[in-house]
C-alpha cells in the first residue's frame, strides 16, 4: 500500500503527491517509509524561493513566473504558505486565487500550506513537500513564503535561488540597509514598479548592492529586477535572472556547497525534531510535564534542574 504511493509519486500522480504531503503535515507515520523510498529520486528539481512582506505581490509574481517557466516547457511545482491563526489553528489560504489560470495545466501542481505555528516564513514540512514534488519529476519548484517581516529567513536555507520582493512606500533608505531579509536576496524584485517611489526604491537597493559588493566576499552580485506583476511585466526578466543565478551557482561550484550545507542543516533538524517528539511523548504521559510545571511555579525546583534531569534520564552522563 505504502510503496504503491511511492510508485505513484514517481509516476507523477497528483493524488499520491497531494496525499503524502498531507501525511507529512499531519506527521502521519505513513509518510516516513514513503519518503524513504522516493528519496533517491530527489535532487533534480531547481528550487526557487519567493519572499517578501504581505501584499507585495508574491502570489501574482509566482503566477507570472509559472507562466514564463511553462513557456520554456519546464514543469512547475508550487508551494504557497499562509499563516495559521494562533488562536483557532485555522487558516485562510488565499494564494491559489492568483493562480487560477494554471489550474487545468497538468504541468503545474500547486499546494497551499498553513504555517501551523511554525516561525521562519515556511511551514515545518515545506522542505518535505518540496522533496515529494521533486521526486514526482517537477523541473522547477517555487516556494512562496508567508508574508514576512524582517527576520524570517528560513527560505534561504531551502531554496537554490532566493528572490526578495519589495514594493515602494514601506520605508526610507535605512530599511534597505538593515540585516535580515535584505541580506538573503540572490535577486531583488521591485514589484509594483509603476507606483510612485519605485525609482527611489530601485536606486536605494542598487546602492546597497554596490556597498555589499565592496564589503562582502561574494562573487554573485544580486540583480534588481523591476516588475508589474498584475500586468505581467518583467516576469521574463526575472526568470532570466534566476537562470543566470543557477548558471553561476553551477559553474562556480557553489551549488554543491549550498546543497551540502542544506543537507547538513536538514539532517540536524530532523534528528532534533525526532528526539524532541519522543521525549515530548513520554513527558505527556501521566501529565508528567504538568507536575514539573507545577513544581517550577512553586519554586520547588528550577527549570534548569528539570532540563538536566530529563536529559539525564534518557541520555545518561556516562553515555555522553
Amino acid at each position: 500500500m505504502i510503496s504503491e504511493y511511492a510508485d505513484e509519486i514517481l509516476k507523477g500522480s497528483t493524488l499520491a503527491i497531494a496525499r503524502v504531503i498531507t501525511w507529512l503535515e499531519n506527521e502521519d507515520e505513513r509518510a516516513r517509509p514513503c519518503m524513504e523510498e522516493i528519496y533517491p529520486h530527489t535532487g533534480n528539481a531547481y528550487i526557487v524561493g519567493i519572499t517578501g512582506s504581505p501584499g507585495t505581490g508574491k502570489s501574482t509574481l509566482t503566477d507570472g513566473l509559472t507562466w514564463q517557466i511553462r513557456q520554456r516547457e519546464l514543469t512547475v511545482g508550487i508551494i504557497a504558505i499562509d499563516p495559521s491563526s494562533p488562536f483557532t489553528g485555522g487558516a485562510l489560504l488565499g494564494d491559489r486565487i492568483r493562480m487560477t489560470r494554471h489550474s487545468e495545466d497538468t504541468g503545474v501542481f500547486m499546494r497551499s500550506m498553513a504555517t501551523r505555528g511554525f516561525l521562519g516564513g515556511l511551514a515545518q514540512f515545506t522542505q518535505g513537500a518540496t522533496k515529494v514534488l521533486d521526486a514526482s519529476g517537477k523541473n522547477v519548484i517555487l516556494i512562496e513564503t508567508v508574508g514576512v517581516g524582517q527576520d524570517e529567513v528560513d527560505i534561504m536555507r531551502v531554496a537554490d535561488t532566493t528572490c526578495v520582493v519589495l514594493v515602494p512606500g514601506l520605508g526610507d533608505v535605512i530599511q534597505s540597509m538593515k540585516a535580515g531579509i535584505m541580506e538573503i536576496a540572490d535577486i531583488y524584485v521591485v514589484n509594483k514598479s509603476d507606483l510612485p517611489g519605485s525609482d527611489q526604491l530601485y536606486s536605494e537597493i542598487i546602492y546597497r548592492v554596490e556597498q555589499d559588493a565592496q564589503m562582502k566576499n561574494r562573487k554573485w552580485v544580486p540583480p534588481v529586477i523591476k516588475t508589474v506583476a498584475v500586468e505581467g511585466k518583467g516576469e521574463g526578466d526575472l526568470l532570466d535572472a534566476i537562470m543566470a543565478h543557477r548558471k553561476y551557482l553551477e559553474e562556480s561550484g557553489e551549488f554543491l556547497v549550498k546543497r551540502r550545507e542544506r543537507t547538513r542543516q536538514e539532517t540536524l533538524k530532523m534528528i532534533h525534531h525526532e528526539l524532541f517528539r519522543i521525549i515530548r511523548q513520554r513527558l505527556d504521559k501521566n501529565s508528567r510535564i504538568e507536575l514539573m510545571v507545577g513544581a517550577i511555579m512553586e519554586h520547588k525546583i528550577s527549570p534548569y534542574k528539570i532540563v538536566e534531569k530529563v536529559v539525564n534520564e534518557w541520555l545518561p552522563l556516562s553515555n555522553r
Partner: protein
Amino acid sequence: MAEKKIKIIVAKPGLDGHDRGAKLLSRIFAEAGMEVVYTGLRQTPEMIVEAALQEDADVVGLSSLSGVHNYFFPKVVELLKEKKLANVLVVGGGIIPLEDIPGLKQAGIAEIFGPGTTTDVIVDFIKSNVRAK
C-alpha cells in the same frame, strides 16, 4: 501524530460575481479551526476539482447565487468521483429553490444551506460528516 485539520475548498462556480457570502464563510471556517482554500470567482467544475485534488481537501463548499446550481453542483460531484475522490464531502449554499434540494442531494451533495442558516449549523454539519483520512 499531529492534530489533523479539516481542509476545505470554498468555490464559486459559474459566472456570478458576488462572493461576499463565500468570503464570510471562508473566515468562519478558519475561525472554526479549519484550513480554508478560497479559490475565488468564476470557477469551472474542472478547476474546483483539480484544486480539491492538489490540496487533498476533505470538503468542497460551493456557493451559487445565479441559478446554475443544478448543473454545476452535480458536475463537481461527478468529477470528484472520476478522480477517485468520492469520499470528499460536498456541501452547497446560496440562493437555491427548495424544490431543487432533493435532486441535488440525490446527485451527491450532502447538504444545502440556504439564506438564514446559522453558521454553527454549517460548521457542525461539516465536522460531523467529514471523512477520515
